[in-house]
């Protein structure tokens, strides 16, 4: 019974039941090619297994040295650095949001009805989005001197393109009819934005800003490595002198702060939604 059904299927549509050898070979060849390419990259970067083994051994020693974590008698200084990191993140996010708001308006299809302008603008934002804040911070710290100021500008610069894109999407996604209604009452364009658009777009935008504040707290922790102050600077100093117990203390404290900030911001975002 079973075999007769099989024979009938073979007679009507043999290509489905027979193994498709060209296709299988193609898949095998593609996988082989990818593996060969990866192997070539490994060779090109001169990644040696013995280096990995040695490094893992050293990591084990680091982990051993990190236990138990110790504040090194400098908890006041560490807390101050944490505060500085949060200050950088907050100031950077606010600056980025202020700068991104007009850009978001320009980038929104519904506000600026010029497809060419819109396309070029969006593409330009896409290109700039890839530059990480650390790369900005490196040059800004060198230009403005050591300290958090360069870090704030770096965070803002790195966020402006992404925030502008998100803002313009929030604006495009809002209903146009309230805008039309307000406009038909004969108010100025600015008032139309304020009463037609802002009530819809503002909660979305605020929640995105909170989200960026969370991520900026993580980014700001890194900026100290290039001299922008904050917790990253303290951490780098500890790692440089192999004081892994103090580094572990800072990392644990930092993780707790991230968790607290994320929870607070999640609550606020849930209220906005």
């Amino acid at each position: 019974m079973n075999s007769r059904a099989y024979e009938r299927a073979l007679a009507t549509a043999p290509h489905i039941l027979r193994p498709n050898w060209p296709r299988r070979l193609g898949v095998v060849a593609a996988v082989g090619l990818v593996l060969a390419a990866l192997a070539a990259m490994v060779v090109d970067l001169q990644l040696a297994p013995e280096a990995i083994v040695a490094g893992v051994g050293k990591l084990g020693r680091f982990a051993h040295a990190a236990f138990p974590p110790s504040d090194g008698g400098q908890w006041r200084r560490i807390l101050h650095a944490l505060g500085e990191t949060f200050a950088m993140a907050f100031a950077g996010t606010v600056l980025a949001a202020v700068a991104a708001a007009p850009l978001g308006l320009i980038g929104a299809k519904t506000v600026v009805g010029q497809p060419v302008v819109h396309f070029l603008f969006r593409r330009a934002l896409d290109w700039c989005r890839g530059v990480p804040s650390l790369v900005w911070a490196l040059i800004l710290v060198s230009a403005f001197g050591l300290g958090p100021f360069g870090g704030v500008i770096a965070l803002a610069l790195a966020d402006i393109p992404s925030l502008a894109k998100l803002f313009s999407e929030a604006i495009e996604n809002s209903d146009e009819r309230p805008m039309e209604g307000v406009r038909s009452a004969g108010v100025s364009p600015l008032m139309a934005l304020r009463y037609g658009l802002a009530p819809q777009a503002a909660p979305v935008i605020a929640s995105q800003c909170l989200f960026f504040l969370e991520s900026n707290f993580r980014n700001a922790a890194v900026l100290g490595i290039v001299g922008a102050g904050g917790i990253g600077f303290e951490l780098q100093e500890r790692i440089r002198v192999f004081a892994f117990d103090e580094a572990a203390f800072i990392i644990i404290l930092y993780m707790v702060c991230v968790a607290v900030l994320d929870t607070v911001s999640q609550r606020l975002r849930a209220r906005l939604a």
Partner: protein
Amino acid sequence: MRSPPVEPAARSVVADFERDRRLFLRRRRWETLVGTLIFSGLLLVSFQHSQFFSSDIGGDPLGRIADFLGRMSPRLSPAALFSDRATQGSLASWLYDLPLWLKLGWQTVEMAILGTVVGVIGGLAASFLCARNLMPIPAVRFVVRRGLEMIRTVPEIILALILVAAFGVGPLAGIIALAISTTGSLGKLFSEINEQVDPRQLEAMDASGAGLVGKIRYGVVPQVLPNYASYALIRLEGNLAGAAALGIVGAGGIGIELQRAISYTEFDTYLAILVLMVGLIFVIDIVSEAIRHRLMRLGAAR
């Protein structure tokens, strides 16, 4: 003409409404006030704390930004634009180390690809261990989930800092840092994909007597592969930017040249490398977007 008499009950309803509305408005006004106060307080403290208007940096932040932009722009002169490297103002003198930058740029791409591949493998392993429908032991799920969360908290640059101390200066530390943080984020995303697998297809295969391998190959893989690949490619784009920054702490790639340009205060060189980096990211974005769209079409066709 007298207004019709209002029933006492109706009057009290109106009064209740008016009172509630007043209370509501008052509460909202208070909330706005308190929110604004907290926000401006935080902002003030933040600006103060981050030395935004501090005199140590000479005050006048806008003026300094303008000055800095001036130092960063290349000194090109239209007359000598296409002459050789030795001529001031030519493109070649601005991009004087282009071959090296391209080589390091390619190294950055390789780092990003290898880090992503290792991270995808790690993320896959973790995702099976913490997906509710595949891992029956809650304790394992809990531990793996918390572990992934912890990894996601630590920025990859800080991982790289520790790894450079262990593995020495070079791309190896960078690849491992990228792989670890990719595992952290993809493990979570992949496990969510796993949990969305339609159980009916697996039941149908059970009914037709398929083995475990057959079930995974024909029941699970076609459902999850396009999503896996799409997330992995998005992560690859992010990792390229990440790999470019990792060089700053000595973990290989183009970042080392950024660091060098800064230590010689060659701001215009910095801009040149930055432009190159943005170009690289742009190319990878286009390639990965094209692949993702093809995969999405394949996924839709199935």
